[in-house]
């Protein structure tokens, strides 16, 4: 198992009541697995649910991307800068 801290921002941070949530996943897990496990573990995040993207090492990651070796993982709700 690997323990992956996931950074949260904006509404996701408020919903979870935390800046970061740690998720336990098998070594071969992908971003898709993380998505399922994170929303199981923190049901309150359901409100940002299917619109969120994940970033691995500060780049947007596809669902297929493996998480082994990731140094930094973040949940990115729809952005509203500008």
């Amino acid at each position: 198992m690997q323990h992956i801290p996931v950074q949260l921002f904006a509404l996701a941070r408020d919903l979870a009541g935390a800046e970061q949530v740690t998720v336990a996943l098998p070594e071969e897990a992908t971003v898709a697995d993380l998505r399922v496990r994170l929303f199981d573990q923190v049901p309150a995040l359901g409100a940002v649910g299917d619109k969120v993207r994940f970033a691995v090492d500060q780049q947007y990651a596809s669902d297929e991307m493996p998480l082994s070796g990731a140094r930094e993982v973040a949940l990115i709700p729809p952005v509203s800068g500008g």
Partner: protein
Amino acid sequence: MEHSTEETIRVSLTENAIDTEAILASVASPRAGAVLLFVGTTREVTGDRVTESLDYSGYQEMALEEMQRLADRAAARWPLSRVAMEHRLGHVAIGEASVAIALSAPHRKEAFEAGEWLIDQLKESVPIWKRENWADGTCEWVHPGLSSSTETSH
């Protein structure tokens, strides 16, 4: 917070007022026949709702990386001389600049195209979020595409 790989591209985040004159001056180039400055400002009225102020929050390290990637892509696509992008973070009053993009290019057509592309892309992908502090005392994170069942009192 600031990033600059080469002197041609400069991206930054600031909690202070954006100095649009400095941003504009920073892209001056003897190769340029066109210099463009876009300034996004905080709007008081959205639809029928009135905003009192906004708070911008960012995933700062990635926001800088993403701004740099966008500027690199723009510089690869159009013959730009220099590019500067700055985004405000923290509490911002109405009517202030929240983002500034300046660039210089040999001709105006590519300057306009690149400037429009950069602000469109920034709004799609740079991990920065605004929270509307509405005049009625509620506040709300803005997440385009999510339903607005997210209001809390402040």
